[in-house]
């Protein structure tokens, strides 16, 4: 029972980390950044490169790759999305395709198999009763929670965060108040990409660095965002808790092959019952017909 609780919590936090960059970007700037999976893996890969090819210490590599991914996000907006801003569906396609291009190029270069590994921060672990947890997972857990808190404070209490929300609520009004939507959009994409890189650094040491993981990250991010409601922070956390615990419970009591059924089932159910998500407030999206 304790193990179910602990591992469920860890899985949920991992899902939150995956979904964060994606939800944040969508909630703030209305851009669904489908390159999220690609940027996640690229962030991890950059860290690996800095560490192994340039020999930098772990901490420094992590910081550099987070900054680099932020710059990439910014560049993605300014270079590609700026020209098609407003055509929502083109934005989706372009980001989706950019993510796939990144992943496929990495896979072609050989990001495959088990050589590429990010080391854990601290080896070893603790034991809570019968359950052993390693420090890396605890660190991910703590960081996930801390990050959630930080971002909430940022979005609700700093000027920049408030201007982000302004753009999300009503772009024209925000423009008339002097908040430049392009700049804000680019910044939000930059922050989302940095978050993806942070998630990569926290979660990848638990497994292996492979290009195909990017697709899974994207699926989970989209699932959590849809189930929770695209622009709601609470919704994202609630959804990841539901899906995370659901997956661990299913793995424990039914069989680990069925873990993937949980996100699928969640999406189907949400669409049937409450299409805009559990805490989604885009009510004007539904029942328009």
């Amino acid at each position: 029972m304790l193990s179910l609780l602990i591992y469920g919590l860890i899985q949920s936090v991992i899902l939150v980390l995956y979904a964060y960059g994606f939800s944040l970007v969508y909630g703030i700037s209305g851009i669904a950044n489908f390159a999220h999976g690609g940027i996640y893996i690229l962030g991890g890969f950059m860290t690996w490169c800095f560490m192994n090819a340039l020999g930098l210490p772990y901490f420094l590599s992590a910081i550099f790759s987070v900054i680099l991914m932020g710059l990439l996000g910014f560049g993605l907006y300014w270079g590609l999305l700026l020209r098609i801003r407003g055509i929502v569906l083109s934005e989706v396609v372009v980001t989706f395709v950019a993510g796939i291009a990144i992943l496929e190029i990495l896979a072609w270069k050989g990001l495959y198999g088990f050589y590429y590994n990010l080391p854990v921060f601290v080896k070893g672990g603790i034991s809570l009763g019968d359950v052993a947890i390693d420090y890396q997972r605890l660190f991910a857990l703590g960081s996930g929670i801390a990050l959630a808190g930080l971002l909430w404070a940022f979005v609700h209490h700093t000027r920049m965060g408030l201007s982000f929300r302004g753009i999300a609520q009503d772009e024209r009004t925000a423009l008339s108040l002097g908040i430049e939507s392009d700049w804000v959009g680019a910044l939000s994409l930059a922050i989302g990409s940095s978050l993806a890189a942070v998630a990569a650094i926290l979660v990848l040491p638990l497994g292996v660095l492979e290009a195909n993981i990017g697709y899974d990250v994207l699926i989970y991010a989209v699932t959590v965002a849809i189930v929770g409601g695209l622009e709601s922070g609470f919704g994202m956390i609630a959804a990841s808790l539901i899906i995370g615990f659901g997956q661990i419970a299913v793995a424990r009591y039914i069989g680990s092959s069925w873990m993937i059924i949980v996100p699928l089932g969640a999406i189907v159910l949400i669409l049937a019952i409450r299409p805009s998500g559990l805490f989604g407030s885009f009510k004007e999206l539904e029942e328009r017909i």
Partner: protein
Amino acid sequence: MADNGGSYRKERVDRGIKARSDSVYAIASFRDLSYLLLPRFLPLLVAFILPLIVGDYWGKVLVYAAVFGILALSWDFLASCGLFSLGQALFFGIGAYLAGAFNYYLHWPIYATIPAASVGGALLCTALLAPVMRLRGVYFAMITLVLPMLFSRLIVATKVIGGSHGITNLTPLGSRWFTIYFALLALFVCLFVFRRIMAQDYGLVLSAIRDDDRAVMSAAINIFWRKVQALFIASGVGCFAGALMCHNYQFVGPSAFALDYSLMPLAATALGGPGSFVGAVLGSAVLVPLSEALRAFGGLRIAFYCLILMACIIVLPEGIFHYMARKYHRFERMVKV
């Protein structure tokens, strides 16, 4: 605009022959008639002759191109209705699996499995996606993106219909000639039917929904029902493509939900020109042989489609077909301001 002597602007003027052949008097002149008919008949002629002259291997590529063309047509039809699907692979995979299951477990011949898979698949996909019809914007794209990936993992996890191994040894489509000509025929029939639909009032309502759905709502038309119908038609066609491919390769596995099948129709249509169904066919006819020729690059092909897609969306949004049509119908000249 500056008023000085060196300022020019580009002017596009319809060609004389287009102006003449736009009216009913076209049938009076053989020249006008051929101006209109040649671009329509030439590809048909080429498509008819090509299988006769290419070898075995490129014959298979032709079938492949035709199937992808059908998938791209289905995408274009959805796009004409305002529904952008990022998951053609869903239709493709469901069609392929249904056809394979009917053939393998119930031993139906291909005359039964292909129609059954098309209609059954259409029903299934519509049921799956109907709730999303009520939402606007990016939701449809997101759902269609995620569903094929989830379905393939579902099949592997539950081990139904062959699990990760898939089912082999299904009934083939018949002789090589039959396969190629059937696929090409299906492609052109779909093309023709879709173009006719969009030219009728029914299609007019669909494109109005794409342009401004509130306006259509205010005309007391049930746009939810219309969108569902459009989805039914498009997914039926997509499932047909999947069923065709399944019998062509006598095999179906979780790879039927691969990302390739979602990306390629998108890239083909973006390249060829969205909105006009011919663009979808044109794009497939260009991209599929190209990707076969680039086989040496392995996984980089997908990155290549992605780059083409990005370039087309950003730089050439009208696509090749519209560009060609524009050149064919109009000429440009610089005119002094």
